[in-house]
């Protein structure tokens, strides 16, 4: 079985700064994987590289959307929108919603890659286009229901409470029908109750939609409870990988986090 | 949400209605037109080019006030309707439609060639005679497209023709360099000059070039003139460039004849170029300052407005006199009799005794050749 995502020897520089150095990792179908590391370790940079926002200096990124498929596809250097179309969707650490659009419209934007109406079709609005439009609204609303924020459907995105905004980011990413969902600190700024709810949502997404998940998170309790596998980054290098238990007891990881007033059992 | 869209709709509706009322009242007020002869004055009365349009308005006012004081023309009072076109073709169309909707009988204007071209089609359609004091574009009359158009200023090509004829027939030069300042006016003139030289088949254009206006050093182009062994230079443009070019030519001890246009026939040119200006030829409007009507017009203007008249004042004064004369002689404002009167009846104006040729250009309005002698421009007698 092929991994859905296989990154090999990925490196990224910013001027002289080696933000990522020879990072390799793979994620298999239906896994929830976490990427952790101290601030500035390069986690977000890693996301940006594999989603095409940055072009890596070297390395390869393979995807294979169907696990039974034998050949894999190198997506390194492709444009972000192509990568999304191929089935990887992401959220942003610093929320990047379309602030002045409604919640529903935000999700409808996510449907863009899976729909087709062009300029002429939009103007003529024949039956096919009308049906497509209707389906976009229906699908988007259903996704909102799934993420539990359907009550806000017609509110402006910027008026939403913080937790709901994070959920909307997830909903919007889900609307692109990904096989792999990349979440950048989805629990940041949430209260404990909301965090638990989020954990359930992520599990549900995995189970019901068959979507694999790679997430960056600083909340260790959340990570340890949720994930099948963890990768640890520090100063752009992968310093450890393994199951949550193995990571918690890994001396290298503990050292990396030392001085950061850190407790795995928090 | 239907509610919201409706309130927006209402707002929209109210604004629309408001405009409707404004339009209605402005137009209702204006729909009275009968007894008096209405003369439309169209031109730039505001904006950058107002200084070209205002003198025409003033000229018309001076004459009309005087006539009205003596019970008008044919016992009809004259009414003046001024409309601003800011010298823009698209606005001139509005101006023209406004004037015809207010029932003007004749129009004095427009000021700029572009605006005039745009407006003429409209006047032509409703058969209104238009007489411009300042639109110099040759095609306005020469194309024959606008039989309703007349003007009291010479078209652009007349100067070029004069310069070329003077150079070829009187100065007998064979090799001419034509220069221009890349501006509308200068380049247009140079273009005509070049064509006239080519047509003459006697002389040839050895150099045709545009110089950068406002530059300090023109030695490159001066060098070219020297290398091409040009006997005369015809320059289309204004005096700042001309004075620099002539100075640099004379410094190189070139004796090449320098001929230019009324943009150069300016005392500032002599002041700046100094010694080098001696012998330079320039065309300029025929000197009419001894004409008694011109003297009267200028003194009237000074008396009423407290200052010297501005651009095209005498041309405008002549235009108004010409059109009023035509109305008076033909005893009507009818299109055919008016155009006929303009073409047959002589009228005394500040620019001399005028009538118009078949195309609508004033016969006798034109340019003379001047030469700098002992620091002043002196009219040359033998020049055509």
């Amino acid at each position, binding site marked *: 079985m092929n991994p859905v995502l296989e990154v090999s020897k990925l490196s990224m520089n910013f001027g002289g700064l080696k933000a990522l150095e020879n990072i390799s990792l793979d994620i298999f179908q239906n896994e929830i994987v976490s990427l952790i590391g101290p601030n500035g370790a390069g986690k977000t940079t890693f996301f940006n590289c594999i989603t095409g926002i940055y072009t890596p200096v070297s390395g390869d990124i393979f995807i294979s959307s169907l696990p039974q498929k034998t050949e894999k596809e190198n997506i390194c250097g492709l444009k972000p929108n192509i990568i999304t179309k191929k089935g990887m969707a992401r959220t942003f650490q610093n929320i990047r919603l379309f602030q002045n659009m409604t919640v529903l419209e935000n999700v409808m934007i996510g449907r863009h890659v899976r729909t087709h109406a062009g300029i002429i079709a939009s103007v003529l609005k024949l039956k096919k286009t009308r049906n497509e*439009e209707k389906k976009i609204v229906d699908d988007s609303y259903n996704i909102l229901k799934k993420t539990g924020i359907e009550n806000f459907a017609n509110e402006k995105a910027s008026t939403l409470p913080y937790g709901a905004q994070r959920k909307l980011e997830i909903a919007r990413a889900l609307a692109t029908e990904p096989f792999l969902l990349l979440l950048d600190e989805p629990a940041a700024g949430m209260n404990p109750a909301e965090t638990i709810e989020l954990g359930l949502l992520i599990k549900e997404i995995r189970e019901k939609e068959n979507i694999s998940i790679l997430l960056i998170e600083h909340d260790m309790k959340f990570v340890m409870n949720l994930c099948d596998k963890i990768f640890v980054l520090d100063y752009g290098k992968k310093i450890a990988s393994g199951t949550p238990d193995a990571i918690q007891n890994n001396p290298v990881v503990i050292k990396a986090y030392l001085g950061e007033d850190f407790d795995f059992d928090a | 949400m239907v509610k919201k869209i409706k309130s927006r709709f209402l707002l929209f509706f109210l604004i629309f209605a408001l405009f409707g009322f404004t339009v209605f009242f402005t137009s209702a007020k204006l729909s009275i037109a009968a007894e008096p002869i209405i003369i439309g004055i169209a031109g730039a009365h505001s904006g950058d080019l107002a200084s070209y349009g205002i003198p025409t308005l003033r000229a018309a006012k001076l004459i009309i006030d005087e006539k009205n004081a003596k019970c008008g023309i044919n016992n009809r009072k004259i009414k003046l309707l001024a409309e601003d076109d800011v010298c823009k*073709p698209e606005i001139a169309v*509005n101006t023209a*439609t406004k004037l015809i909707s207010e029932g003007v009988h004749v129009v004095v204007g427009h000021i700029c060639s572009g605006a005039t071209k*745009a407006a003429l*089609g409209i006047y032509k359609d409703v058969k209104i005679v238009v007489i411009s004091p300042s639109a110099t574009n040759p095609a306005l009359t020469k194309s024959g497209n606008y039989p309703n158009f007349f003007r009291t200023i010479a078209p652009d090509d007349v100067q070029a023709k004069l310069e070329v004829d003077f150079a070829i027939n009187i100065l007998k030069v064979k090799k001419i360099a034509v220069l221009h300042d890349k501006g509308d006016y200068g380049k*247009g003139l140079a273009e005509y000059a070049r064509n006239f030289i080519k047509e003459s088949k006697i002389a040839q254009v050895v150099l045709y070039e545009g110089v950068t206006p406002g530059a300090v050093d023109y030695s490159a182009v001066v060098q070219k003139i020297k290398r091409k062994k040009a006997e005369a230079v015809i320059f289309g443009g204004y005096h700042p460039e001309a004075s620099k070019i002539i100075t640099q030519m004379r410094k190189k001890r070139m004796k090449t004849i320098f001929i230019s246009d009324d943009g150069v026939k300016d005392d500032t040119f002599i002041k700046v170029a100094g010694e080098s200006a001696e012998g330079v030829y320039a065309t300029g409007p025929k000197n009419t300052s001894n004409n008694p009507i011109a003297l009267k017009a200028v003194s009237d203007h000074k008396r009423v407005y407290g200052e010297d008249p501005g651009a095209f004042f005498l041309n405008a004064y002549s235009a108004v006199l010409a059109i009023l004369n035509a109305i008076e002689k033909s005893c009507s404002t009818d299109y055919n009799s008016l155009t006929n009167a303009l073409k047959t009846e002589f009228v005394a104006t500040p620019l001399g005794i005028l009538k118009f040729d078949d195309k609508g250009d004033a016969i006798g309005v034109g340019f003379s050749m001047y030469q700098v002698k002992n620091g002043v421009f002196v009219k040359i007698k033998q020049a055509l």
Partner: protein
Amino acid sequence: MFKLSEIIKSIAVSAWFMFLTFPILVIKVNTYEKTIDWRWKNMILIGIASFFLSFLWRYMLKQKEYGSDKKKSKASSFFKNTVKNPKFYTSSIVLILCLIIAFPFVFSIYQTNIMTSALMYVVLGLGLNIVVGLAGLLDLGYVAFFAVGAYSYALLNHHFGITFFMALPIGALLGAFFGILLGFPVLRLKGDYLAIVTLGFGEIIRLILENWNDFSFGPSGIANIPKPSFFGINLSIYETTTYMYFIMILLVFLTVFVVNRLEDSRIGRAWIALKEDEVACQAMGIDKTKTKLYAFATGAAWAGLAGVVFAAKTSFINPASFTFLESAIILSLIVLGGMGSIFGVITGAFIFILLPEYLRAFSDYRMLVFGAAMVLMMVFRPQGIIKKRRRFYKISDSGGKKQR
């Protein structure tokens, strides 16, 4: 009632204004008599006026901060109730249609003519609104496409005798083509840089038209452009003006229809998203390049269309009609009317184009009045006269059913 500090503030303001206006309003050089007039009276008037106006200014600012919605809801509830009435709704539509149709027959040729101009600017405004209001691409060279449309009709007619109605689609297509042409180099640019490059593009087109004499007849322009023909019948100037008016009305209806549909479509949403956040937009799978080019092309197409009408209406065009000022006016009218809102743009165009015509008497102060209006607008109502509202989708639980 007034605090001392406020009075001091106002005194400072009035002193500042007196200082600022001193050179223009107080000193007058009389060139005829070579003397200087000192018009101290003006200074005193300015001082007093600015003193009192500064109070008003502050009062209005405060009013704006304390949310004026309380008052508004009361005042407008009457309107809302009236408007809710469907009878009123349909009857007002009928009324407007009647007004539109009756207009050229009731009013003079002049009124019809300037109304046609205003309608032309509605089309231009709606076109630019796609680029600026929806896609958020600040385009300061929009007039270039207008010029392309106008010259395409003028030149094609001159050389090949293409008629007005044939030129309409050609002008639109050429406009779109030039839109794409401009789009390519500026794809990577944003905000200020984009504005500067588009500004340059507008000037380039104008300079080409001005200098390439063999192609465009240079600054002397093209005259005698025919008006649209009416089944080969020769129309008088009055009839032609009415005819142009109705052609323009139809074009405006077409534009509103198309722009409205586009706005509520997959492409339209992508444009709006692009304006909000480019990175997120791409991450959502929207092709930035394609979407931007679409916006430039569709926006420019309307300018091309309007350009053809302009050429026919003016019957003479030269490059001087397509200066940066024209772009600025079109941009201003959509900002004033309400960026992104169709009603807003229409209102803005009417105000911006018709008002100056009716204000001819104050022509010298026209630009001053407009400047002041724009400043006040941006301070007190930055969204424009009519604010863009997001679309409202009504969803029943069985599935989505949308409504406005």
